[in-house]
């Protein structure tokens, strides 16, 4: 396989880390914390969108006004405690939907089975924050929903703010925050809230702060020690290559390839190249 493909210019070069951590860890004796069996998800989308009385009455006469979209197809997956799993794939390949299914926010079609053990938190940009409220209030809300008492949050509050580097903006409503600040805040809360399973949805997409990136990477490395499980959806291959034990490549809602980053990332580039070619052909 051609591994010397030209990389898109947006690609960030991997950080120069000496002696990259080898992730050939044996996890097979650990307990399974997430298990998906025969998971399918079909969305029924109305052309007009909203559920209104008008649509419902019209639907009775005109028959099916719904469009079926198979967002997830036959996904079977077992994730063990402490694993760092990457999910990659093109836009619209079902990555985010899969995360929401694991979260339990979306229920799979009949016959599908999702079992999880441990407290989960999904991190995405702008996640979990009420834009009108300050970082202080958001920290309390999120942490308390994750099961911390106010007292525990009191104790960790400074640490969280420090970690996020938002000391000066603690009382500013989150709507004035930049993308980077938001994701820093989210990650800081998550790290201190001690969720067992993190679902990261394009989480570092907007973080440009090199300092924070470094800190986060340290946390990533540490999280293995603490036995946290991380599922990381990303387009940024350097992060995937550096941290993941296993990578899943999604394509059209199905698992296209599973394996180590070394095995899977090149297939991803292949797909991306195909897509570009298709676009070019369509353009001609």
């Amino acid at each position: 396989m051609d591994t010397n493909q030209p990389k898109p210019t947006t690609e960030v070069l991997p950080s120069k880390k000496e002696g990259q951590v080898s992730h050939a860890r044996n996890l097979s004796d650990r307990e399974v914390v997430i298990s998906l069996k025969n998971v399918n998800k079909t969305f029924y989308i109305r052309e007009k969108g909203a559920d209104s009385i008008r649509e419902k009455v019209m639907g009775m006469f005109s028959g099916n006004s719904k469009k079926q979209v198979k967002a997830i197809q036959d996904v079977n997956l077992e994730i063990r405690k402490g694993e760092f799993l990457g999910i990659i794939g093109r836009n619209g390949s079902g990555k985010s939907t899969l995360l929401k299914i694991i979260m339990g926010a979306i229920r799979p079609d009949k016959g599908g089975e999702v079992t999880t053990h441990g407290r989960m938190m999904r991190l995405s940009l702008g996640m979990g924050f009420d834009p009108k409220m300050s970082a202080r209030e958001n920290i309390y809300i999120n942490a308390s929903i994750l099961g911390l008492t106010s007292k525990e949050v009191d104790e960790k509050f400074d640490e969280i703010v420090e970690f996020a580097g938002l000391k000066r903006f603690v009382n500013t409503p989150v709507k004035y925050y930049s993308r980077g600040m938001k994701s820093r805040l989210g990650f800081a809360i998550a790290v201190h809230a001690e969720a067992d399973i993190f679902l990261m949805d394009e989480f570092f997409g907007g973080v440009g702060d090199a300092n924070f990136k470094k800190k986060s990477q340290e946390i990533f490395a540490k999280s293995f020690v603490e036995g946290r499980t991380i599922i990381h959806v990303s387009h940024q291959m350097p992060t995937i290559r550096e941290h993941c034990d296993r990578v899943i490549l999604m394509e059209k809602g199905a698992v296209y390839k599973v394996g180590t980053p070394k095995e899977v990332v090149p297939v991803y580039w292949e797909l991306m190249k195909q897509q570009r070619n298709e676009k070019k052909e369509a353009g001609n």
Partner: protein
Amino acid sequence: MERIWLLAKIDFKKRYYDQGLGILWALLNPLFKLTVYYFVFTEIMSNRTPNFALYLFSGIITWAFFAQGTKKGINLLKNKKYLLESIQFEQLDLFVSATLSVFFAFLFNLAAYLVIHLINGIPIYATILFLPILILNIFILVLGVAILLATINIYLRDIEHLWDIVILAGFWLTPIIYSKEALLEKFYFLAYINPMAGIVINLRETVLYGRQPLYNLFFYDIVYAIVILIIAIFIYRTYAYKAAEKL
């Protein structure tokens, strides 16, 4: 429990946060309504009910709690979608805290009512002991209806507008600005359909007049509220799983 309290507190704060007069709006709104109704019904339509201002005010604030609390439920899941998609937690907590946050304003108004009550030289009767039960009764009712509406809203977005109409009709079919006799003599059955009628009537009987509540409505409304809440929770558990997907 603590989480519910925290969410309610922050929600309450947020509601009055941006505005200059802050929490005072919770009181000013019913006071303005009171002024308008009082003017219309005493000056224009020459109603001579004694203590009509207090009579009106107690009705207005009680109804306002019901109207605001239930309306808040409709879009609650949509507004908190970011939480549903990010964190696993008991979602019914959201409804309890949202209802609590509206409830704070109601308590605030109730305190204002009692102040005016005393200023008018009306004693505090022993029957005020019914008040906590009545308050709990409304709370359970509002919570149940809010959960019910939120679940319906996932499948039928029109409920928001339909409910506006119900609230309007309910306001006029509850003896808020007219006497209880006017309703009960001719349309007693309406008090069985609309539990707020009995609650408003009994709140005045016990607090304003120092009389025994109408016991049939008193007990009926308690059972009504509890049944609604149980049905609402059942329906929520069965159908609300589509919230994150459809809203």
